[in-house]
């Protein structure tokens, strides 16, 4: 019997995507996306490559206006990037600024918004949380890819968001580093009590991390399935992946993705 507790997740909606459509001229990318995210929830959006994941993410983040529909963030319609939303981008080597040290990068968004001491405290706390204590004076290019993505996550955390939006954050790191970073994100979610919306093309990653997996179809994209993983917390790379329920959800998502791909290629 699998314990069904998904524990502390409330039923309070923090984000709602309603009838989101996006087209560039004739080409329709997003075809009516609908979903909600509850406070404290870890939601993974998984879709085949070319399914408009990045477009969806940019619309949700307020970086791009949808053609139709809207995103509500904490009850307010998103028309510009919300203040309580932090984005961790896919390509850390481009989103971290190479002319600044790691701690300057982490401090950049919040500089001037808090007194100096609080600023230093926040930066330090974020760096400690991601396992980069004492590395703040290094430049990003002096660190490995995994460490750079940790720094980018620290920047998001120091911003103190209610929602952390992550765009394929571990796509560029090696498998072992990826495993470490997955567990890091799960731990940080509890530590900072944030809601996480995590976009990925990796099915294992999505199932392992998520409370709920949203599966996208191929373009024009919609949400084909909304699956609660119902896996016990805390997760464990070995034990969780041994569970029957894990294989079940994984197979389900895999099937949907393959169907979406073959549909798209017709």
């Amino acid at each position, binding site marked *: 019997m699998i314990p069904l507790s998904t524990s502390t997740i409330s039923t309070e909606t923090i984000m709602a995507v309603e009838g989101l459509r996006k087209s560039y001229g004739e080409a329709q990318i997003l075809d009516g996306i609908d979903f909600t995210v509850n406070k404290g929830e870890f939601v993974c959006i998984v879709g085949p490559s070319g399914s408009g994941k990045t477009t969806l993410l940019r619309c949700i983040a307020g970086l791009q206006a949808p053609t139709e529909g809207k995103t509500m963030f904490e009850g307010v319609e998103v028309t510009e990037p919300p203040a309580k939303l932090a984005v961790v*981008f896919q390509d850390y080597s481009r989103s971290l600024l190479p002319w*600044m040290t790691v701690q300057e990068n982490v401090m950049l968004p919040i500089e001037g918004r808090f007194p100096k001491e609080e600023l230093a405290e926040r930066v330090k706390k974020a760096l400690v949380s991601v396992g980069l204590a004492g590395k703040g004076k290094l430049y990003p290019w002096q660190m490995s890819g995994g460490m750079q993505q940790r720094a980018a996550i620290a920047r998001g955390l120091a*911003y103190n968001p209610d929602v952390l939006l992550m765009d394929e954050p571990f796509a560029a790191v090696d498998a072992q580093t990826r495993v470490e970073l997955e567990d890091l994100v799960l731990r940080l979610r509890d530590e900072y009590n944030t809601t996480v919306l995590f976009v990925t093309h990796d099915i294992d990653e999505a199932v392992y991390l998520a409370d709920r997996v949203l599966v996208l179809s191929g373009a024009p994209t919609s949400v084909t399935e909304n699956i609660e993983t119902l896996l016990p917390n805390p997760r464990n790379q070995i034990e969780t992946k041994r569970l029957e329920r894990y294989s079940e959800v994984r197979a389900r998502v895999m099937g949907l993705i393959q169907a979406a791909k073959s549909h798209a290629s017709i």
Partner: protein
Amino acid sequence: MRTLFKDMGLLLWLPITILLAWWFGSANSTSIYFPPLELILETFARDWLGPRFVTDALPSIGKFLVGFGIAAAGGVFLGMLIGLSRRLNAALDPLIQFLRAIPPPAILPIALLLFGIGASMNIAVIALGAIWPALLNTIDGVRALDLQVIDMTKSYRLSPAKRIFKVLLPAASPQIFAGLRVTLQMSIILIVVSEMFASTSGIGFYVLNSQQLFAVPETWAGTIVLGLLGYVATLVFVLIERRVLAWHRGMYNSLEKA
């Protein structure tokens, strides 16, 4: 220590060899066009290590620095504005392409008409003639800003001041410095040419005036002064560039290793 000597040796052997060859080769020269190096250096010391340094060299250096400063600051500032606005860029591009195609010394006659003989004319010629590399490189550098960096600045709601001074300018700085280096070289050329063209003092004036008076050692000595001025200016620029772009070299080297 040994490698330091080796490096210095590698750097200096050719200039020293040339100087020695010049010194001994010209020692007994009776040609009025190629006076002995000893005589040239004596003239150099007499004219340029004395009061003339204050009356002629310093004003030239001052005008050069002010002109370069205006060209550099103006080029970077306008380049930022134009680079940030697609419309402004489209509207101004033909004009910029035309103006920068004018050979800089060709603006001398008009500058002389407008400003007369004096420091303001020299400065105007440098500012107008040497601004283009700084301007064009800044426009390119600003426009080449990575889309993901732009997304980052927006999603973290960075203030306009932070966007410009902490993101945009540093991101464009390698290209800006490449432009400034050319602007610097053009400024040196233009201070000399404008002083030769119409001036009553300055190093450029001294060289041309000496030549017209058939004072050959003075002509040579003045040319050496100009060479030294250009050399020192470039050296100072490179030192500043190295400091400001230290991150860029570091990143480049780390990529090469990987």
